[in-house]
């Protein structure tokens, strides 16, 4: 079933995230796809994540779709101006990709040998608005399109962001603009999501009252990010390099004490997913390309 058709159902959704290769060799990418495709409702393809060059996310998402696998194309505002965004969005539709996750985009690392010029002409709210405009059959210059696209649009949330209210405001802006599903940054304890989601729902009234939006707004589906921490090294890497990710101190302690860090990480991820079944609409599994780890977790579940 298409991802779009699954969204309004009560099914606990599962998506997995993969990055394109750094090069033209698809062997590892295809291997990971093979490991997870039977257990997920769609696979996200990241877009130069952490502003580190990878092969085109559009090309790799199309590669999935050509193999009959539902793909979620991740697109950032960092690398494309509005013209390139319009053009690539139309191209995505031509290639049969049906789902887009709109991301603001990680900033390039200052220490890069080659520092790429960041664009950020449109932010994530404006990109969602752009997609919706193209779906009506018109471009940014109000020129009619010959053939219009149709997408299922997702946006990102960071449950640990502060100050909370301004982030809730922006998230509701994304929903109001047209986001139908949300994939969150990884959390490591259920409370990190619970309190965020409660605050999000409670803020709906305030947002509807103060903004010029179409009411009532539809609460999007939330797929909560889960990242299995199968080693201390992985945990430290995430903590130091992934923007907006907060790993509670006790996780580091547990990993340090553990005789089998892989097992500890797997168990923790599986346990978290179990708890999320009652609290969210789904899970978004990320593991920086560790396909076997992802498969172990996915297989352990009865989704």
């Amino acid at each position, binding site marked *: 079933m298409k991802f779009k058709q699954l969204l309004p159902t009560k099914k606990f959704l599962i998506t997995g995230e993969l990055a394109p290769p750094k090069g033209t060799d698809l062997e590892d990418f295809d291997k990971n796809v093979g490991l997870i495709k039977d257990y997920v409702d769609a696979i996200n393809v990241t877009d130069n994540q952490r502003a580190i060059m990878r092969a085109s996310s559009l090309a790799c998402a199309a590669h999935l779709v050509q193999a009959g696998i539902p793909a979620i194309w991740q697109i950032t505002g960092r690398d494309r101006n509005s013209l390139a965004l319009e053009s690539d969005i139309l191209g995505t539709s031509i290639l049969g990709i049906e789902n887009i996750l709109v991301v603001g985009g990680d900033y390039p690392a200052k220490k890069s040998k080659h520092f790429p010029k960041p664009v950020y*002409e449109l*932010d994530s709210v*404006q990109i969602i608005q752009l997609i919706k405009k193209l779906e009506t059959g018109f471009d940014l210059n109000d020129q009619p399109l010959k053939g219009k696209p149709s997408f299922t649009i997702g946006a990102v949330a960071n449950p640990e962001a502060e*100050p909370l*209210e301004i982030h809730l405001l922006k998230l509701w802006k994304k929903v109001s603009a047209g986001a139908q599903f949300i994939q969150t940054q990884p959390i490591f304890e259920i409370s990190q999501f619970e309190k965020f989601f409660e605050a999000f729902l409670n803020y709906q009234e305030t947002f509807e009252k103060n903004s010029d939006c179409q009411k009532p707004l539809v609460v999007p589906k939330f797929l909560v990010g889960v990242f299995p921490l199968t080693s201390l090294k992985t945990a430290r890497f995430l903590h130091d390099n992934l*923007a907006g990710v907060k790993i509670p101190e006790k996780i580091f302690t547990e990993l340090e004490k553990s005789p089998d860090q892989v097992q500890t990480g797997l168990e923790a991820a599986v346990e978290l997913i179990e708890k999320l079944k009652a609290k969210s609409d789904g899970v978004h599994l990320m593991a920086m390309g560790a396909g076997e780890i992802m498969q172990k977790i996915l297989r352990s579940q009865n989704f």
Partner: protein
Amino acid sequence: MIFTEAKSKEKILKSLSAFEKIFIFGCGSCATKCGTGGEDEVKAASHWLTENGKKITGFFVIESPCDERLTKKALREKKKELGQAEAVLVLSCGSGVQTIVENLNIPAVPGLDSMFLAKIENSKNFQEKCSLCGDCILEETAGLCVITLCPKHLKNGPCGGSDGEKCEVNTESECVWSLIYKKLKKQNKLSQLFTFQNPQKFSQKIPGQIVKKL
């Protein structure tokens, strides 16, 4: 004011490698304020260039080299020394360098990199404040510029990359959206943030603009 940084001596010497006789210009305005092109810096440049085998035919700090009227006057006054020079080293922003270039026949080498529009806190502290975006919305963001102080120039609210309230990119600074939020909350004006902001109008910012007012 325009904040400039001095280019390295190695870079300047490389740029001047084809020339022996040099005249040095400084800037009495912005470059003086940030200590890169005032009297002291021009004299120091004269000194270390001489130590590196150059002959300095003269030096002069133009009050504002970007003001063509002042530059033309300076070029007239220093005509004799300039006549002996093979190239000029200019310690000012790019606007000053180009104003001199347009009025001189010998090559000009920039000695500074033009960095940003600054607020001067004191003689040692300069903070970037304005990006010259041509579409100012300061009254909608509590007087804090999101184009400048947010590296991603986000107009609809913060990104999810902040660490607590710290900016994802400038990790020692508080996220500008966090600052805007707190300020507007205090002023009871949070309603301003619910507006959907449009993208910046880049048509205002096509480079190379010439403005001739009557």
